[in-house]
């Protein structure tokens, strides 16, 4: 067990003592007046109960909170579908350069040519990696990229007199954001079955295309798919969808399996997003900012949002708003600029020659893990995988142990749990993505821990059912958190919660908390 027993941290309000000060402010050099006298008739809140603490108490509070967090700088983080790779610190250094960190989006173009050049270079670099003709850097996350992609598909069909098309095909195993994005853009989603190989069921796809003839706007596909398997029929899938008048959308969440090795544009996809916070090394899981740039083929380029970074003939850079068919703006300014700089530094560090080493090692690590762990845990679709692999723990049910329990026990061994219960088509599912940045020793350590948990399931399942034992709290009441989502603090509630001992008894109660998830 590598984790020390941790205790829960009281809130700043509980640590507050009347009259305690963190700073001495200079005396007021203007006459003091009551706010109510200065703002007659304006409703004033008054009496805001701010906590009173000394500076060391505040520093220790936040440092302790940060130590309760688990991050990839601390250890292995095999959260499938999220690509929690180590983020080299040199990319942060690039972001701190004053020419990037201290510019303002409204400053004149001639004073920030370097920043504009990065945007233009990044559009080209991502286009080259994805096999796409043009790239928009605007989307702030993967789901935002999906939404832009579907808006572009819609704009394309409208422009070609096909605006009546209303169906978007999505495999049953897809990321939940795919049907959600389609619905958000006014489309009806149609589910495609997964066949015994774990791939798109071609027979079912053909049937659906016939049933929805003339109505299919596009198909959204993750490749490799959410089982970590490469869609071998991708060329044929693109072909039949194109012949039915639809466009092909690639959810690039799993691009870490392909980068430098294969390009979705070459497979036949027309439009895709890629998560810079997965494949391209932006810190991930801390609430952002993420970035989900969208790449398109020539046919969709006219509809891209404004502005696009452009290099003029004289070699200077500008932001191009003169795009008559553009769908307009999809966010403020130019995307998550510093995230783009970080990812650009990462791409340039590898260069064209070495990018393939990312996907090669990600796939190698996942297959090593699949082959070794597959002796103890059942692989859902046992064939060569790409960058992640999916296990089903249905056999553990005979010990009364579920995937959720195993995930919680992983915490006691000092690792972040794998993704669980996704994709939905695999019962009692654990999805493990080691990424390319982990050493053989780290992966072996994790495998040993998982094997140990499997033995515990047979010999002493209660220790798994009671896990985690080393965290400040045990099982969070996710149902209560989802039913009454309320993240704001109020002095009334805090005092009643304290009276029930909620924050003072480590590891005993069920606590309501928002479920942490990785960004789409």
């Amino acid at each position, binding site marked *: 067990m590598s984790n020390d027993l941790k205790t829960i941290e009281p809130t700043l309000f509980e640590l507050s003592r009347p009259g305690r000060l963190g700073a001495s402010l200079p005396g007021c050099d203007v006459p003091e007046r009551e706010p109510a006298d200065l703002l007659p008739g304006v409703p004033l809140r008054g009496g805001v109960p701010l906590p009173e603490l000394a500076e060391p108490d505040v520093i220790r509070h936040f440092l302790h909170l940060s130590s309760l967090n688990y991050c990839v700088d601390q250890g292995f983080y095999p959260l499938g579908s999220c690509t929690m790779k180590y983020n080299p610190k040199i990319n942060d250094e690039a972001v701190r350069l004053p020419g990037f960190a201290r510019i303002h989006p409204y400053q004149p173009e001639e004073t920030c040519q370097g920043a504009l050049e990065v945007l233009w270079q990044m559009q080209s670099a991502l286009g080259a990696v994805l096999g796409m003709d043009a790239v928009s850097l605007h989307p702030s996350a993967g789901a935002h990229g999906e939404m832009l992609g579907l808006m572009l598909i819609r704009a394309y069909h409208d422009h070609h007199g096909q605006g009546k098309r209303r169906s978007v095909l999505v495999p049953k195993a897809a990321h939940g954001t795919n049907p959600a994005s389609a619905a958000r853009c006014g489309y009806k989603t149609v589910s495609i079955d997964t066949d015994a190989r774990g791939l798109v069921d071609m027979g079912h796809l053909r049937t659906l295309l016939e049933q929805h003839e003339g109505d299919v706007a596009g198909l959204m596909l993750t490749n490799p798919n959410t089982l970590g398997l490469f869609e071998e029929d991708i060329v044929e899938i693109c072909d039949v969808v194109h012949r039915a008048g639809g466009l092909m959308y690639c959810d690039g969440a799993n691009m870490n399996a392909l980068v430098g090795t294969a390009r979705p544009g070459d497979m036949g996809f027309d439009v895709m997003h890629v998560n810079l916070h997965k494949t391209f090394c932006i810190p991930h899981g801390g609430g952002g900012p993420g970035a989900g740039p969208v790449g398109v083929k020539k046919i969709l380029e006219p509809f891209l949002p404004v502005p696009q970074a452009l290099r003029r003939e004289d070699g200077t850079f500008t932001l191009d708003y003169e795009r008559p068919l553009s769908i307009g703006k999809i966010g403020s300014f130019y995307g998550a600029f510093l995230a783009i700089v970080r990812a650009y530094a990462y791409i340039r560090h590898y260069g064209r020659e070495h990018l393939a080493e990312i996907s090669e090692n990600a796939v190698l690590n996942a297959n090593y893990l699949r082959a070794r762990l597959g002796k103890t845990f059942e692989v859902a679709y046992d064939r060569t995988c790409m960058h992640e692999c999916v296990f089903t723990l249905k056999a553990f049910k005979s010990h009364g142990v579920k995937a959720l329990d195993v995930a919680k026990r992983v915490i006691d061994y000092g690792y972040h749990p794998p993704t669980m*219960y996704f994709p939905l088509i695999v019962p009692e599912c654990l999805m493990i993505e080691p990424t390319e940045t982990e050493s053989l020793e780290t992966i072996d350590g994790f495998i040993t821990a998982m094997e140990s948990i499997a033995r515990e399931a047979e010999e002493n399942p209660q220790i798994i059912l009671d896990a985690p034992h080393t965290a400040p709290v045990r099982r969070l009441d996710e*149902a209560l958190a989802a039913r009454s989502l309320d993240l704001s603090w109020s002095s009334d509630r805090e005092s009643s919660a304290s009276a029930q001992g909620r924050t003072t008894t480590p590891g005993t109660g069920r606590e309501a908390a928002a479920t942490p998830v990785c960004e789409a």
Partner: protein
Amino acid sequence: MSDIRPGFRYTKSHEWVKVEGDTATIGITDHAQEELGDIVYIELPEVGRVLSADDVFGTVESVKAVSELYAPVSGEVVAVNEALSGSEAAINESPYETGWMITVKLKDPAEAGKLLDPDAYRSQIGE
């Protein structure tokens, strides 16, 4: 072993049907609630909606997943279990009783006879 009630009929998508005269009460099975985990939200149809068999009549959201509910039989919705909204835990605690979802007036009382009987449902879920 999941609780499977004798005398009820079942679907492959894990709904149950209890037929009484020309009405049928519908919910999800004990196996379904066990697989879904803690249910946090449910969306049910309005009274008066006319359903055909296999129509989506609502959605159920658990901490794991959102699932659609499929009408096992055709008919008009005559009652909806309004008490579930805000007390979704009843579906986990008592899927066949207080966790019932809707009652429909059957279009064809013979239709439910085509659904899975308890033995067929038990083998469907691999028990």
